[in-house]
């Protein structure tokens, strides 16, 4: 029995090291298997970049409408991220630590925006905050109209990005060993102090990467924004909406905008991966 399992172990070790040896049949097979999805993802991105001249990008950066869309996208998405952090952190902490019934249902509801088609989310937001919406009716009674304003853009982006932040923060909070929190308590630290001096520093990478993913999602938000906030230049026309608008008249500048947005999203993605890998190296 022992002999058999030892051989098995050896085989497994061989298989594992084999993957790392270039030229090995196994590693070649692995590469081929990855090739199809890899090409599928890379081809469109590369095609887009090849279509656009650097000079055109620089020229586009001089156009007020492009700059406006970029600034709007950046400010709204940053605001949405901050809002997500403020309202998402307590919820994430509760989901990570709380031992109360209904946790699974709360978790499922908070993740709903991840599977909800953005257009549906936009309509739903309209039904809630629109002039005749559930909450919107009361608000418009006070003279507050949210629909088709920059605030509506932020709401739509927060709606779509919040689950990503909560997921990241929750994972981070869960990774803090229980004994550290117990130790802090026996050492006389209040729960709030424990949170800021122990929990947050230790889950920092997960919090940051969750916030970055939320931000990325907010920047790319399209469906919910166009349904709920509309497409008004300077007010609600963010980058994705500007691309759609340009596509109908001026394909060239649509492509330039697309490249700008692509590089921005890639930047966010790389940043998130880097923050997370930093965590692995640290531990």
């Amino acid at each position, binding site marked *: 029995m022992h002999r058999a399992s030892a051989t098995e172990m050896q085989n497994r070790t061989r298989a594992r090291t084999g993957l790392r040896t270039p030229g090995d049949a196994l590693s070649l097979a692995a590469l081929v298997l990855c090739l199809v999805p890899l090409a599928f993802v890379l081809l469109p991105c590369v095609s887009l970049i090849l279509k656009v001249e650097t000079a055109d990008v620089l020229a586009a950066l001089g156009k007020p409408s492009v700059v406006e869309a970029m600034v709007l996208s950046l400010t709204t998405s940053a605001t949405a991220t901050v809002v997500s952090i403020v309202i998402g952190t307590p919820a994430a902490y509760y989901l990570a630590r709380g031992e109360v019934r209904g946790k699974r249902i709360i978790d499922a509801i908070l993740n709903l925006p991840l599977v909800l088609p953005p257009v549906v989310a936009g309509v739903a937001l309209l039904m809630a905050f629109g002039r005749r919406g559930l909450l919107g009716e009361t608000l418009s009674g006070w003279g507050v109209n949210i629909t088709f304003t920059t605030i509506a853009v932020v709401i739509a982006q927060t709606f779509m990005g919040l689950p990503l932040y909560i997921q990241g923060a929750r994972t981070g909070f869960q990774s803090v060993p229980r004994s550290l929190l117990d130790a802090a308590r*026996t050492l006389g630290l209040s729960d709030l102090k424990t949170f800021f001096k122990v929990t947050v520093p230790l889950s920092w990478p997960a919090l940051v990467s969750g916030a970055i993913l939320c931000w990325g999602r907010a920047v790319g938000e399209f469906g919910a924004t166009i349904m709920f906030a509309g497409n008004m230049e300077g007010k609600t026309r963010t980058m994705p909406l500007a691309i759609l608008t340009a596509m109908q008249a001026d394909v060239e500048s649509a492509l330039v905008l697309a490249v700008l947005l692509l590089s921005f999203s890639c930047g966010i993605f790389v940043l998130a991966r880097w923050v997370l890998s930093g965590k692995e190296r640290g531990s």
Partner: protein
Amino acid sequence: MIRLDVTKPLRDYDLEVCLEIGQRETLALVGPTGCGKTTVLRIIAGLERPEQGVVMIDGTHVVDVGSGTWVTPQQRRVGMVFQDYALFPHLSVLRNVEFGARARSLPRGQARTAALEALAAVGLDQLADVRATELSGGQQQRVSLARALASGPRALLLDEPMSALDASTRREVRAELRRFLEGISCPAIVVTHDVVDALTLGDRVCVMHEGKVVQMGDRADLLSRPRSPFVAEFLGVNLISGEAATTGEGTEVTCGDLKLLSADAAQGPVQVTFSPWDVVLSRTRPEGSARNVLHATVSGITHMGGRSRIALNGGVSIVAEITYGAHEELGLGLGDVVYAAIKAAAIHVY
């Protein structure tokens, strides 16, 4: 002083414990994994609530379920050393210990002084600026002790302090910890599943089984008079004190009239352990060296399954465990005189 009398339902049975620990006393709480001993510590620290009962520290109630008294763990001033030591990995050794001192709401400067003093007390002041995660297991244990100490605790609770250490460092760390516990002025409770740890660290030992205290007493009492087969089987070990000296053949430990030879290197005052089943009894003096042989009187006989546990007294008290067949053959009864030979390879020196 700590007093507690609590009950709490656990998964498989109810925890029912009544204990009293004196001001300068160390109590070792020992029992198999899952017997509820860690829960006792957590109840004292305020990390868990008992269903019924009271906990008193220094004469005041910190828990009284009947009257609804509840002092939060933050206000109890109970130092706890966790099984994984629970050092804050993002902070330096000094900052970790300062956490303890700041808990007493000392101003920053005084907290630093107190932290440095506590670190010096465990001999780690040289490593103050090192990150807690870069230390060895034994060093982490000492930082954890210093941190608890710096908080000016009214009681010190240690949850399995030895279990995160590898076997090679255990012996040394155990001796250090023993010295540390002798030096502190508040009551201490050490929870362990290791019998040798319990017997060497505790002034008194409390054996727990399935949520209940099955026997409590000092070392000699427990080893020579186990009150139940469970205790006897669980302790399952002889432990005597002696003085070690190095000879050409190995380490010679003198324990009263008994001279023991062991392969373990040691010097000075030591503890010697060997299992009862490594003791061979005979009516006549065994041939060869006079070492590792005790001439003793049978002072107690307990039957457990197919084995007999025989307590012997010959200047030092030891216990032998032999098969019932061997017992019959020797025809041993109370007051009989026998020779007990201990196999040299089975003798461990701490």
